[in-house]
């Protein structure tokens, strides 16, 4: 009884026919293709790529190179790579002879070394003189940053031609002599010495302090001094013709000073190293022989 009456009451309630028609039409219409599920997949891939890139960037920033060089130094190093012919500013206290030589290498590789060496000599001399007046600050950190850069750029160093080295170092020698004579002598004995290679073989912490012509002797004689980490060295370079006799030996005296005598094709070198270990001295001597 209740059931029939309840059913009849419900059935007597009118339906909204318009709503029913609209829903039926909506049900007949073709469904839209839902694309967001596919988009989710692509966005997941994109998000993964972004995360990988970010982590790579963060890893790079936390690497050894970024730890040991400040932002200013990084900018400076990038400037060295992009603008090798820019004159060295006088107040740039962090650039040393190593950076200067590496920049000049790039300049020399780009230019024709056989024909344009003499043309570049004048500009080279000016830069050289400017760099000689610079005392590097925070030398140790700066030196390590250069070591890191040199490791990365080792292929280019290896392909660096010997003729280019000769041209550079001869121009350096000419620059030194021009301080006295204001002219470049043509047929003088030239000192050939790969300073970059030597720097790489120096013990950790030792950096170049001075790289000056020896005023007391010949115009081609040079003295390079370096110190750091409780160690120091003095390297005297003379033209080969000035050598008394050919030598290639390492002598250790009682004061803890190791003397290295090396005579090569173009020069003779005497290096006196304080507090160097025998291995460090041997590596240093090997670099001088090259």
């Amino acid at each position, binding site marked *: *009884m*209740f*059931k029939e*009456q*309840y*059913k*009849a*009451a*419900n059935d*007597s*309630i*009118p*339906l*909204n026919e318009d*709503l*029913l028609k609209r*829903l*039926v*039409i*909506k*049900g*007949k219409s073709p*469904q839209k293709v*839902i694309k967001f599920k596919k988009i989710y997949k692509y966005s997941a891939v994109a998000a993964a790529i972004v995360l990988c890139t970010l982590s790579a960037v963060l890893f790079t920033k936390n690497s050894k190179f970024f730890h040991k060089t400040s932002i200013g130094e990084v900018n400076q190093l990038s400037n060295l790579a992009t603008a090798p012919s820019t004159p060295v500013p006088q107040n740039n206290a962090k650039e040393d002879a190593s950076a200067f030589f590496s920049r000049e290498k790039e300049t020399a590789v780009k230019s024709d070394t056989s024909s344009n060496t003499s043309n570049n000599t004048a500009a080279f001399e000016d830069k050289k003189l400017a760099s000689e007046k610079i005392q590097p600050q925070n030398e140790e950190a700066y030196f390590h940053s250069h070591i890191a850069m040199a490791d990365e750029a080792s292929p280019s160093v290896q392909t660096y031609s010997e003729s280019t080295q000769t041209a550079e170092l001869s121009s350096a020698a000419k620059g030194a002599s021009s301080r006295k004579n204001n002219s470049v002598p043509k047929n003088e004995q030239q000192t050939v010495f790969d300073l970059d290679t030597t720097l790489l073989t120096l013990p950790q912490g030792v950096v170049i302090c001075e790289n000056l012509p020896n005023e007391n002797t010949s115009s081609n004689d040079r003295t390079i001094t370096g110190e750091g980490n409780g160690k120091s060295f003095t390297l005297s370079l003379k033209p080969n013709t000035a050598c008394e006799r050919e030598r290639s030996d390492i002598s250790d005296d009682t004061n803890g000073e190791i003397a290295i005598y090396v005579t090569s094709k173009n020069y003779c070198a005497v290096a006196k190293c304080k507090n160097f270990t025998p291995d460090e001295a041997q590596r240093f001597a090997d670099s001088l022989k090259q």
Partner: protein
Amino acid sequence: MNSLSKSEIIEKYFNTVYKLALSQVKSTATAEDITQEVFLKYIDRNKDFESEEHIKAWLIRVTVNRCKSHFLSAHFKRTVPLTEETDMTVLPKEKSDIYYAVLELPPKYKTVVHLFYYEDLSISQIAKYLGQKESTIKSQLHRGREMLKEKLKGGTDIV
């Protein structure tokens, strides 16, 4: 795997959904809104149903849940209807008494009573559709009947 198209399903179960919603919310406008939302959800649904029984169960379940959501909504809580009673002047007096007696029941009893007496569903089906135990449905149906007896004062036999 249903043989009927979506439009046919809508035509077939429109009455079921609408009446169930109306019994819950006691407002024709709100019941129409809920019916529309339920069928739009059905149209947008991409998954295939196993059978027509599955579709019916899904529609009833979604309607009940949507009615519960309506009672929980801020709009319902902050709004007071102008007239407490539903606009069902078309109903005869004796029919409207029974109908209003059902509408006065608490929602959980109302749902069970409506599905049992109007949709002719068994207790096991109602339990399956609403996701409850059969014993729960039995007790709710029993209490609903008791309340209806009180309201109707023996005027109608509730079987």
